[in-house]
């Protein structure tokens, strides 16, 4: 157990740096190709390097704030969210990490996530629905699960992935539009078919890469490990199983969740509904809830 947690921490750190370097190289490569194709020359590469560098740096240092901003959360206080606040203090004591900052999303769908680049800059965020629908022990299980993500450095990895993959998805969308319109205009003077070929290539490259990266981020192992190490703190696997059951059976859909943040939550916030984008199939790597509950019940 201990060994697998430490190797997980190590892997998360390495993968984070890898994706940051990869992202910068990827953007430079893309900009080079487009620079050549559209006749801007090398200047585009310089701009791309600076922009992707800033993106990477800010995803590392401000990823938690960006994600919180996307989710519309506000800070919790001890009086109003007594259970949430005190339970988090308790788990932090048990895990031997500083108490994370706590945020609440005013939404009645029960769910929670954690983010932040290390245990010193961590955030746990719960919805109002979660705080209302779970009892103290169940809440304890969920928070311990989230704090395990923090302790295992899953949160650093997932925050960086959310932002960078989100950026690539956004850029590919943007490239497509600009090529569509720009291509039409240029068809008269220069070879429009060349641009269309590049468009095809870019999409052939981008789509599987985005898919793979997201699958990396939401690997089943990560969720199972957080369930297990969370249970190691609370010594109460049944409560977490109960909580997962309650959350997954709840019919409400969390409106604050977006494609970029969906995989952060303890349970897929879209619940197969209201989510028709092609992205949905990529999120199927969320481990099936029944399996998690079964394992927890047998602990």
């Amino acid at each position, binding site marked *: 157990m201990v060994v697998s947690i430490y190797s997980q921490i190590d892997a998360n750190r390495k993968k984070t740096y890898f994706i940051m370097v990869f992202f910068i190289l990827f953007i430079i490569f893309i900009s080079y190709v487009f620079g050549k194709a559209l006749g801007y020359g090398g200047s585009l590469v310089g701009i791309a390097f600076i922009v992707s560098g800033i993106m990477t740096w800010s995803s590392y240092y401000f990823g938690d704030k960006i994600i919180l901003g996307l989710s519309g959360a506000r800070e919790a206080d001890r009086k109003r969210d*007594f259970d949430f606040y*005190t339970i988090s203090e*308790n788990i932090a*004591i048990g895990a*031997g990490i500083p108490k994370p900052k706590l945020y609440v999303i005013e939404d009645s769908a029960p769910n929670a996530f954690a983010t932040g680049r290390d245990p010193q800059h961590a955030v746990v965020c719960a919805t109002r629905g979660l705080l209302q629908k779970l009892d103290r022990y169940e809440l304890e299980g969920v928070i311990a699960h989230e704090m395990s993500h923090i302790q295992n450095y899953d949160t650093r990895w997932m925050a960086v992935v959310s932002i960078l993959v989100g950026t690539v998805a956004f850029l590919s969308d943007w490239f497509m539009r600009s090529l569509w319109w720009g291509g039409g205009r240029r068809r008269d003077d220069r070879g429009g078919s060349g641009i269309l070929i590049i468009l095809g290539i870019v999409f052939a490259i981008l789509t599987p890469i985005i898919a793979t990266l997201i699958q990396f981020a939401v690997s089943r192992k990560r969720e199972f490990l957080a369930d297990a190490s969370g249970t190691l*703190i609370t010594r109460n696997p049944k409560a977490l199983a109960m909580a997962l059951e309650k959350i997954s059976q709840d019919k409400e859909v969390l409106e604050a969740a977006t494609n970029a943040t969906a995989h952060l939550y303890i349970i897929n916030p879209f619940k197969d509904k209201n989510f028709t984008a092609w992205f949905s199939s990529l999120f199927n790597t969320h481990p099936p809830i029944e399996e998690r509950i079964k394992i927890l019940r047998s602990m």
Partner: protein
Amino acid sequence: MDIFTYLIIFAGVLLVLALAAYNAFVSARLRIKEAWSQIDVQLKRRSDLIPNLVASVKAYAKHEKGVFEDVTKARNSLMSAEGPADKAKADDMLSASLKSLFAIAEAYPNLKANENFLQVQKELSDTEDKVAYSRQFYNSSVLDYNTKLKTFPNVLIAGNLGFQEEEFYEAGESERRSVKVDFS
């Protein structure tokens, strides 16, 4: 190279290993100390809540003097206790006396609805959880440290360097959660 050089290299390697082990012992022991101070803080917080609790129960049940005295006595002995074993015992005593205090509270519906009483009760059960969690962390730090001391090859030098095994913080009957059920 002659045999003398080999010996020097060998001794140097041993020294480096011993230094590394020494540093590992020191940092593990520091962590125990830190974990212990966390328990101390929570026990202190617990005893600080007691007078408030006693006062709010007293307002409704003046004549139950014996119980109040027990609780106060247990609180004082917790505050003066030293070291894990003594503190654990004193804390158990306090938990036992609190049980009878809450049993009394059961008989007074007005008290049970009292805002202040409910607040103290919530704080108290939270503090009990905190004590339990800090104890858990303390014990795992002790386990970690003791394991370091007793495994080979550390076991050969730990004693000579003056590192002793640390004691666990053992809780008695009144485990975490069990107290809570009584007055919810």
